[in-house]
C-alpha cells in the first residue's frame, strides 16, 4: 500500500464505515464521546469483538470502570461471547476497574508520577496477542482518580502515541458530564484524538428519546457531516447512514 492511501480499519458497526470512507484510519486514535448511557462502551467493545471475529484482528480492552464480568454479561445479550475470544487468545480484558479486590486504597497523590505502568500493562497484552485494536474505557474516570490534570494530559499523549506506535488502532471513550457542552472532563479529549465520534440519546418528545451518532472529525477523511440515526439492537449497535436523526 502506498504512503498516500490511508488504510482503513473496519469498525464492525454496521452502517458506520459508510460514513467515514470505509473505516478508521489504521493506527489512529479515535475518541468516542457521549453522555451517560449513550452506548460508548457497547460501541467500543463491539469494535473489538467484530475485529476479532470478522477481521482477524485481536484486541485489548482496558476497563477502568466496569468490572469485566459485567461487560461479558452485557455483551452476551448481543450474542457477543467475549469469554470465548479470551480463551482463544483473540481478546484480553485488562481489569483496572475500582471493584478489584487486590487494589489498595489510595490515600494520597503527589504531582510527581507518570502512567508508564499503564503503558507497560497494555503493551504487554498487545505483544502477547499480536493485537491490532485497543480500547480504553473510559478516560474520564482518570479525572476522578487523579488530581494532577497537567500530568494526566501529558501522559495521555505519551500513552496514545506508544499504543498506536505499536501498530494498534486506539479507541478511547469519554463521558460528557450531563450539563456539559464539551467532549469530556479534561477539555483535551478532542486534541488527543485524530477522530472524534459523538453519541447522542436526545429527548425528541415528552415520551421518547432517539439515539444518533455524529462524526465530528476524522483527519484525512471525507466524512459525513450529518447526524445519523443509531440503534442498539439485539445484535449490538447499528447505524442508518441514510437516515438523518429526527432530534437534530
Amino acid at each position: 500500500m502506498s504512503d498516500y492511501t490511508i488504510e482503513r480499519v473496519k469498525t464492525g458497526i454496521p452502517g458506520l464505515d459508510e460514513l467515514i470512507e470505509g473505516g478508521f484510519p489504521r493506527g489512529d486514535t479515535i475518541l468516542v464521546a457521549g453522555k451517560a448511557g449513550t452506548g460508548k462502551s457497547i460501541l467500543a467493545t463491539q469494535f473489538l469483538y467484530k475485529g476479532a471475529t470478522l477481521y482477524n484482528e485481536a484486541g485489548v480492552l482496558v476497563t477502568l470502570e466496569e468490572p469485566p464480568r459485567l461487560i461479558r454479561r452485557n455483551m452476551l445479550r448481543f450474542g457477543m461471547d467475549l469469554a470465548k475470544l479470551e480463551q482463544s487468545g483473540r481478546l484480553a480484558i485488562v481489569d483496572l476497574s475500582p471493584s478489584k479486590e487486590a487494589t489498595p486504597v489510595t490515600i494520597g497523590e503527589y504531582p510527581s508520577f507518570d502512567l508508564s505502568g499503564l503503558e507497560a500493562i497494555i503493551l504487554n497484552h498487545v505483544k502477547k496477542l499480536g493485537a491490532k485494536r485497543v480500547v480504553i474505557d473510559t478516560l474520564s474516570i482518570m479525572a476522578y482518580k487523579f488530581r494532577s490534570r497537567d500530568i494526566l494530559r501529558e501522559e495521555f499523549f505519551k500513552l496514545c502515541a506508544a499504543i498506536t506506535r505499536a501498530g494498534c488502532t486506539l479507541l478511547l471513550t469519554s463521558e460528557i458530564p450531563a450539563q456539559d457542552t464539551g467532549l469530556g472532563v479534561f477539555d483535551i479529549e478532542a486534541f488527543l484524538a485524530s477522530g472524534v465520534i459523538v453519541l447522542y440519546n436526545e429527548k425528541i418528545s415528552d415520551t421518547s428519546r432517539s439515539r444518533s451518532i455524529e462524526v465530528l472529525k476524522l483527519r484525512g477523511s471525507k466524512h459525513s457531516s450529518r447526524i445519523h440515526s443509531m440503534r442498539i439492537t439485539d445484535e449490538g449497535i447499528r447505524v442508518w447512514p441514510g437516515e438523518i436523526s429526527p432530534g437534530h
Partner: protein
Amino acid sequence: MSEKTERTEDEEEVFGESSIIEIVLFKSDSCAFCPRAEEVIRETIEDFEASVFKFTVINVTENPEAAEEYGIFALPTVMIGGVSITGIPEPEMLLKMILSAKVYKKRGAGE
C-alpha cells in the same frame, strides 16, 4: 507426626507475618520520579530496625502482570498494608502509613 509439625509451622508463619510490615514500591525503567521515591523510602525506614520491614520493589517494565493484579498503573506508587500513595512520597506520609499498618497489625494479632 505430620499433623503436629504442620500446625507449628502455621503458627510460626502467622506470628512472623504479624510483626513484619510489608512495603511495596512499584516502579518502571522509564519512570523519572521512581529513583527518588525509592531513595525516600530507604532513608525513611533506615531509622528503624531492619527486621521490622520487608521492602519489595516491583519493576513494572519487567513484571507488568504484578501491577495489573494490584490495579496499579501510575508510578511510582508505594503500597503499605492495603493503602497506597502515588508520586514521590513525603517521609511524614510514609511514617503515617507505617504507623497505621502497625496499629492495624497489632489489633489484628490481639484478636
